[in-house]
């Protein structure tokens, strides 16, 4: 049985009528066609589906739609403004933080969350902050550089 659910996604008010236990990941991808949020494992291990829910980093594969009712969501589609890359996106692009790109949306949101908490993070804080987002391509070194450069750009 479906339940009406309302939330704000990337600044836009949205209503969907979905089963209350439908994964937020599927609501975003199937009902709202926001396919930038990726599924990697479906069990909260890889972070490819990470989004910001009321400013907190969550794995949307583990969040039932009902839990998102009334919340404020930010997905990768909401990070840039009018086609202008956010500094985090720009730094990932320049420093080789994205290779195959499948972990990139989640990684960028995790970085967003990290820099909100620590505007000038240490390497340990970056390693810890991104430990819930798996990347099989980069070995993380280019990602660390991207995050450091983004921090320097946003909070010099």
């Amino acid at each position, binding site marked *: 049985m479906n339940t009406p659910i309302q939330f704000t996604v990337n600044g836009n008010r949205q209503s969907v009528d979905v089963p209350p236990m439908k994964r937020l990941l599927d609501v975003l991808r199937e009902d709202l066609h926001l396919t930038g949020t990726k599924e*990697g494992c479906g069990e909260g291990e890889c972070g490819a589906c990470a989004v910001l829910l009321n400013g907190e980093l969550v794995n949307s594969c583990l969040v039932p739609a009902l839990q998102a009712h009334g919340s404020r969501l930010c997905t990768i589609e909401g990070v840039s403004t009018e086609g202008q890359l956010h500094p985090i996106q720009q730094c990932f*692009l320049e420093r080789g*933080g*994205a290779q*195959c*790109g499948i972990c990139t949306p989640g990684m*960028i949101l995790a970085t967003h969350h990290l820099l909100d908490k620590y505007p000038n993070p240490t390497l340990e804080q970056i390693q810890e902050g991104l430990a819930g987002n798996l990347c099989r391509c980069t*070995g*993380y*070194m280019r990602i660390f550089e991207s995050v450091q450069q983004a921090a320097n750009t946003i909070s010099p």
Partner: protein
Amino acid sequence: MSQSKPILGASPLRKEGRAKVLGAAKYIDDQSLPGMWHGATVRSSIARGIICSITFAPEIDWEQFAIVRASDIPGENTIVHLTKDHPCLAESQVNHPEEPILLLAHPDKTALLAAVRGVRIEYDELPGVFTIEESEAAVENNDAERIIWPGSDAGGTANCFKQYLMYSGEANETEDGLAAAFEAADFIVEEEYHTGAQEQLYIENNGVIAECNKDALGNVSDVCVRGSMQCPYYVVHALTLIFNLPEEKCRVIQVETGGAFGGKEDFPSVIGSHAALLAMKCGHPVKITYDRAEDMAATTKRHPSRTRHRTAVSKDGKLLGGTIDVAIDGGAYATLSPVVLSRATIHSPGPYKWPHIRVRAKAMATNIPPHGAFRGFGAPQSLFALERHMDKIAKTIGLTPEELRRRNFLGTGDRTATGQLLNEPVDMQHLLTRALQESEYHEKLARFAEENKHSTIKRGVGFASFMHGAGFTGSGERRLNSLVHLDVLEDGRPQILVSSTEFGQGTNTILCQVAAQTLQLPYEDILIAQPDTSVVPNSGPTVASRTAMIVGKLVERASHQILATLREQEDLPEEHTREQFIAAAQSYRAKHGSLRASVRYEPATKIYWDDELYRGDAYPGYAWAVYVAEVAVDLNTYMATVTRFDALQEVGLVMHPVLAKGQIEGGVAQGIGYALYEKCVWKEGRMMNNQMTNYIMPTSADLPPIHVHFEEVPSIHGPGGAKGIGELPMDGPAPAILNAIENATGIAFNTIPLLPEDIFERFTSFTEPAHGGSEDFDPTHLGEFLPEAVA
């Protein structure tokens, strides 16, 4: 505007990078076609047996489903690789767990889960073999019940997909030389080494969407498969047999691919064929995407291996002769095992001079899902054994690991074990010197020896020296006969047409750099077409570290050809501006309708290779490397951690420093996982830990700083002097790390993955391990802080 700075060797933005950081790149699961259905696979629940009956649960309305069985296949029931032993769908017998038996499709994806469970299959079980040793025993004992693979017309024998026998010279002379070497040796050093299976663990699972059209008689007229893959033309080839259609009626399109590492080399032929058969049956486009559990349980992994070394050495540390016996576990069907074994064989003698060597190699059949391609492709297995063995030899004869290698390195003008003359510069001595300096190896060796006496954390350093051949083995590139087109479009922008795919490594970017550099145009002007086999020619598969060197060289030659045409026919000057190029190209197009250069592979130098004797020029070019690992082994937790990693390599011209570093770091991270974290747990052929929760790959918090260093010695084989680098970084980390662990603890571990429980077992028991290390346990080495359990 003529370019002032060379673009090859600079780091322009990744071509498709903007779409990726925006989350706008469309992977296969982000795509949908009108009227699309979803597909699922009914798989074997046992390892080996005869299918007795298939029944369908009465509570499900099967009218709503499309069902495909082996008998529905219009052409041959085979996923063709090197032989046709591998069925697309099991007909009467299954040979491994998760073997596909039936396919189902339904408009609603959520209906499929219950439907898959609603197909009941009964089997008459047969005994299975699950290890190399069990497979060998069946052959030795003539145990007909356990001969699980009959042989093939492509050189396979009972339970053995392929064997190679490689000699460093003429067979009789080498055998005589070996006998004399072992007679004269001051030391004979023997050991056995093991490596485990490894999951590619691309973050995007396998997935495809297929379409199928029929003619007026209801026969399949053409099929189209789009999806996540490395080698579109491999899928075309598979479809031609499944549907009995000509190549031009089987269209394959690669879409943005979320990691591959070899795991999407051969497997897309399976899932692509399945989706196309369902599309044929239901008359709608069909999407199949695996979830993580299915992807890990049912798709290919790196081949487990066992390597035995026996080496004759003089007391001054010269290798006099050696025998190497390599065995890999191929799983239930031959798939790519013969070629993986080939690379394992050729890399097994490493970067050393062997007066006499014999390598015997075989790929055995087991009732496990077929193992397949994974970055390194056999070389990580045999180089792990070799580089552990070199440390054992050094220890046995009383030389340092460094000195032993220095006395045996290949150099310019030497011949490799296959007899290949190294006529391009090779300087392993310098690479070793620099790698040890960059990593402060000698200083750490001394410091850790002192500090370890007073600490429960034992620290150590170790290294591995190795090489990796770029391109297909031997005559492979000649047989591939790769073709590249370069078009100049109406607006004067060049467009590269290749089947070489981008899956994170940077294909799009580096090929555009090559064209920009050669055509003297801005990088931003160069386009690269989506790999769609109805548009792009077959430039070969995107594997074997061949794209930069082989396909890059073809793009360079095609660019030269365009320039030659425009200079000859349109008076384009030797040094031209962008505007002059566009004007010349448009003028040419106005007269001729189009402007295209097409070039085929030609070896840069004469390449000789004998497939029978395994002698000659094994690879056009090699990348050479020395990797140094620093480790800490905590004797409270028995956890070994890499605390710093230095990777030095000579790879010819570095085309794009940012991408190249990313390739090396990513490969090293996978190598660290291979050595210390990633263990496939098997039970009767089935992977038991097919989840990211319990198959552990390194996270950002697990990895040490990885320092990447390049030496650049331009090669004639690649564009601008580049060589292949993609697989190289997978080869060195595991032996370097286990060498460092031996340095830290005094204990020789010769099996990977090496988990804390394995270290615990060795430390807390004085028994010999089942296989591997032969060093005696030496409590004095551990100093005063022995763990409680053994103190």
